[in-house]
């Protein structure tokens, strides 16, 4: 297998879902089964190819970077700039190869799961078409070798998530959520775009290679280290949007308005991971300051959303905030410099969070069917307070859900333990090296909170007794097409797939394949060097492991005490801490704040400007018109009264004389004679003197 072949295969992986999209969008409704098998087949091939690429890349080209670039737009030699061309291209390194598999695998499983979950949907083939374009765009991000294609696919992912979240657009909440997702992402992309502009203006290329090469050559943007940091942070803004980091995290929980498999695909495993992937890609150009900002943003996100997750009752909302929290974890991990750990958490989290969402989908599906059977349209199928005892009726869903939960809580032997532990070790190392001890503290706190709220769901939904006996009779386990993906993901949530040592990821193939890239920024601005950091990380590992076990154990214990053994009355605590509970229940009032400030502020400004436009500016125009018109009337009056008046006056005077003089014209010869005589007399007197 040659490198070229590998690149060609990766391009095939990229375009297969697009072909699926095109087929389904144009012919979907005419195909049997509305063409779901098309999507399934194309994604299946994509998955198979991705696995082959990963295997080949890791086994045969472990160190190589496979790169292919072609020129998209060529402006030739231009003034002030020199040769200007925009290159696009694909690149495969180990991270890309892993991500290809993650994306295609989750996407394939979601395709499979949806055949049952979405069965009978009014826009079934459209749904599969959108899944196709989503997979295409996501793979495009993963496979890009430059910021431009990254940005292009970045936006396309935004589009496809818009379409998928708004799949049930008849519901106002769904169309609101999709709009919110797109616009919020655009805010992040605005920063991303400015970052790209900075790079382009200075380096005249947008390929990773070109940019990093230029930075390594000592070329700062605008010759200033400040702009270097700014460029990093601005590009990170893109990640803040896509990965739902504070302060742009608000769209993700709302995005749960989309179909649940979509939530699994987009809002758990792949799209939101794009932000983390972006940080990983730009890691070499991030300065220490930029990384610190990233670490803090991640930590704040992780903390805020974990606290919110505790108070939520909607199963998907809890999972959504848990996702935000875990994404914060990854971002924090990358920010502190635990590169391999952060990306590994991205992969492991993709598996178990997709599993959790699909599991919740299975639960909601069952609840929905039961409620539908009882003609009950008021009870919320997603509220965990309406569930309970589902363990007995849905054993596959239950057990897989438990596996995912212990994985996310960081219990040993799971994949989550490995990655989370590595991140926490990284945060401790970071705290020790830089003095930012708040980061590891938040890290451990969030680990405990995660264990608590995840077990809260498991206990409330699956254990104990069901709230309504009659309804319980109608609850059934979901079909194989839905449980099979769950089981597969559950298997992937065990440690063995990532590292043979269940207690540390270091030494596993993953850490070996994906190593922290060397920074290209000058040493004075760069973060702690890899060697020093890994040394500290290594020392912190034991502490981190023990501490994380303790906090996770504590979290689980409290969850059981509260909700299973009911030794602690959760409602009483909630009542006692009512303001805090309300604060958390309302998600720290972020939505209200943004609604009031950003949305209404913009709309208000828009209204004011529109008023200004139509009244003031147009008013001036109209006033100019009116003044001209008044001037016209005045001069018209002047014309008709004064100027024409003179003309008429002449005529009137002449006419007046005529009127008077015509009296003389009597027609009587005798009077004429009198006048003649008088005339002679007058003449006589006049000329007498002469």
């Amino acid at each position, binding site marked *: 297998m040659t490198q070229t072949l590998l690149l060609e295969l990766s391009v095939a992986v990229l375009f297969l879902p697009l072909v699926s999209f095109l087929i389904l969008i144009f012919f979907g409704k005419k195909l049997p089964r509305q063409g779901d098998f098309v999507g399934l087949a194309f994604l299946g091939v994509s998955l198979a190819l991705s696995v082959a690429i990963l295997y080949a890349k890791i086994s045969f080209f472990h160190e190589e970077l496979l790169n292919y670039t072609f020129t998209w737009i*060529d402006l030739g030699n231009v003034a002030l700039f020199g040769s200007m061309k925009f290159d696009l291209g694909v690149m495969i390194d180990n991270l890309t190869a892993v991500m290809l598999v993650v994306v295609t695998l989750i996407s394939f499983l979601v395709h499979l799961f949806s055949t049952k979950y979405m069965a009978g949907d009014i826009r079934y083939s459209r749904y599969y078409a959108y899944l196709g374009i989503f997979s295409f765009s996501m793979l495009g991000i993963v496979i890009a070798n430059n910021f431009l294609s990254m940005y*292009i696919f970045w936006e396309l992912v935004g*589009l496809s998530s*818009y379409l998928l979240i708004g799949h049930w*657009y*008849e519901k106002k909440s769904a169309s609101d959520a999709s709009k919110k997702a797109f616009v919020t992402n655009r805010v992040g992309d*605005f920063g991303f775009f400015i970052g790209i*502009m900075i790079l382009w203006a200075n380096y005249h290329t947008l390929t990773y290679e070109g940019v990093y090469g230029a930075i390594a050559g000592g070329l700062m943007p605008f010759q200033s280290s400040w702009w270097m940091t700014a460029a990093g942070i601005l590009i990170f803004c893109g990640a803040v949007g896509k990965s739902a980091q504070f302060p742009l995290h608000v769209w993700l929980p709302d995005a749960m308005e989309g179909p649940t498999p979509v939530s699994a695909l987009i809002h758990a495993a792949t799209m939101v991971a794009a932000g983390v992937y972006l940080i990983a890609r730009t890691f070499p150009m991030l300065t220490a300051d930029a990384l610190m900002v990233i670490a803090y943003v991640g930590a704040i996100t992780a903390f805020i959303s974990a606290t919110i997750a505790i108070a939520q009752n909607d199963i998907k909302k809890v999972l959504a905030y848990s996702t935000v929290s875990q994404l914060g974890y990854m971002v924090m991990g990358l920010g502190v410099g635990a590169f391999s750990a952060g990306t590994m958490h991205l992969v492991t989290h993709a598996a178990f969070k997709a599993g959790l969402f699909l599991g919740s989908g299975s639960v909601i599906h069952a609840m929905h069917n039961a409620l539908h059977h009882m003609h009950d349209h008021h009870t919320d199928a997603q509220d965990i307070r309406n569930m309970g005892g589902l363990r007995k009726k849905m054993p596959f869903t239950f057990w897989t859900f438990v596996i995912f939960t212990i994985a996310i809580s960081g219990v040993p032997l799971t994949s989550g333990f490995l990655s989370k532990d590595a991140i926490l070790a990284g945060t401790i190392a970071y705290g020790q090296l830089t003095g930012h001890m708040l980061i590891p503290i938040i890290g451990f706190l969030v680990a405990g909170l995660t264990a608590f709220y995840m077990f809260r769901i498991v206990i409330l939904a699956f254990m104990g007794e069901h709230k309504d006996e009659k309804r319980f009779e109608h609850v059934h386990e979901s079909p194989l097409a839905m449980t099979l993906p769950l089981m597969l993901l559950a298997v992937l949530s065990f440690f063995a797939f990532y590292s043979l040592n269940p207690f540390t990821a270091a030494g596993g193939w993953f850490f070996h394949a994906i190593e922290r890239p060397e920074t290209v920024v000058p040493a004075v601005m760069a973060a702690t060097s890899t060697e020093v950091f890994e040394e500290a990380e290594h020392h912190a590992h034991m502490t981190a492991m023990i501490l994380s076990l303790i906090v996770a154990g504590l979290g689980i214990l409290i969850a059981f005490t509260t909700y299973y053994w009911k030794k602690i009355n959760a409602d009483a605590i909630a009542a006692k801490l009512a303001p805090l509970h309300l604060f958390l229940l309302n998600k720290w009032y972020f939505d209200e704040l943004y609604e009031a400030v950003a949305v209404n502020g913009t709309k208000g400004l*828009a209204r004011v400007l529109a008023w200004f436009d139509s009244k003031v*500016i147009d008013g001036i125009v109209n006033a100019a018109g009116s003044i001209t018109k008044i001037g016209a009337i005045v001069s018209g009056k002047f014309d008709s009264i004064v100027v024409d008046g003179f003309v008429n006056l002449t005529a009137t005077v002449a006419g007046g004389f005529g009127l008077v003089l015509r009296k003389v014209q009597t027609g009587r010869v005798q009077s004429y004679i009198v006048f003649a005589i008088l005339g002679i007399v007058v003449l006589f007197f006049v000329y007498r003197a002469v």
Partner: protein
Amino acid sequence: MMELKFLNVGILTWITFLPVLGMIAVLCLPKNSKSATRWTSLGVTALQMVLAVVIFQHFNRGVGGINTFEGMQFKELVPWIDVQSVGILGRVKIDYFLGIDGISVAMVLLTALISFVAVIASWNIEKSVKGFFALLLLLDTGMMGVFVSLDFFLFYIFWEVMLLPMYFLIGVWGGPRREYAAIKFFIYTLFGSVLMLLAMLALYFSVTVIDPSTGMKMHTFNMLAMMNPANFDPGSLLAGLGTSMRYYAYVALFIGFAIKVPIFPFHTWLPDAHVEAPTAISVILAGVLLKMGTYGLMRIAFPIFPDAAIYFAYPLAFVGFINIIYGALCAMAQKDFKKLIAYSSVSHMGIVILGMAAFNSQGMVGAIFQMFNHGTITAMLFLIVGVIYDRAHTRGLDDFGGLMNKMPKYSAVMVIAFFAALGLPGLSGFISEAFAFLGAFQTYRYLTIASAFGIVLTAGYMLWTLQRVFLGTLPEKWEGLTDINARELSVLVPLAVIVIFLGIYPMPVIDLMNTSANALVDFVRSGAGMTLVGR
């Protein structure tokens, strides 16, 4: 040099005056032959499109043009008016001088395309069909003439020729406030024309060339001669570089063109004209007419006054910024579908201005390409509004909802147009916007950052509109709406294909304009006698 002739008449004359021939044909038709009128107009504009494609194929991409006679292609130079002595003016000689370079060729293509689209879009006009199509064809000639003339006098004539049919098309076939809108449009443009005329005359009396036949010096309206500083009489009004008189002349020209673009604060005629104009006229207005303003800046104002262009570069960029943000915010507050799109045009034309003001190749290419793309995308948007207005007889954004289910094909086209308008990658709008911003960023760092926020606002109002009109549930009163018909699809689909194709592979069009944009930037920068200070 490529010369294309038919019946010994150059292709540019053909493409410009074909519509006039069509107009005469239409006028000769019997009074009630509506369908013959339509088909004649369609045939004429189709023929014009064919000529445009011929030009596209034979256009030499490697020649810059701008200020050299040699660089212009498909030239036609014939003495037109030549009076030996006119009082104190001396000899007056005006040439019929046509020619195109990379800046104009894209506009010629766009004009041919949009005119063709407009004819199909006005198929359902029933009120004095003959008059409508005759005026439409006359308008076509006026627009085409502006883009191909290289003699300032000729340019001015075409510029004014375009006004008259536009006035009647809005004033007769328009909506309820059509008289107001038509008069506003007419007077506003005429006001700009007067300023332009003043600048033109000042230029005429300042520039002299030697008549090759007599060896005598004479004044000229030739734009290319005006671009050469050596042709300015020493001591004449506009001689020298960087004099205040030149700045005044530039500003006069600028206002003339700015009204057409329209640039804030001269933009208020646009929403009114758009709202009242029939669909096809809105399409032409947004698709071609607005570009005449920016084209005029590039063709005339910049190369003739490079010093003033550089001197006023920052203010120019600043009004571009205002246009982007202000237009977007105003669009957000609108309740009328057409008004919203009119304001979005203000916003999108701001990107053109910003890109031009950067005075670098990328910004300039971005600006011209954005002119082209805005032409196609906004044409789509107005056609989309037209489709719904024809059926529902209202354009209120809040009156609709849920059209996605009722009119699926229509909605598919609409999604493409809306996302193209908000600059989604993969559609043509993205590339030109990105180019303009990237170019502008190199000259004006902070201003461009502020302007780029427009992409967020645009996404906001576009998606909000999409949600209000197409998503949600269908109000009962619209149960009877029918999906888009074949005629409407036949205009929208080709436009959509162009938008998608240029979004994926823009080189065919960028190639056309690239050399000229480069040459323009070079010429302005080197001729200015001062350097552009970026901020």
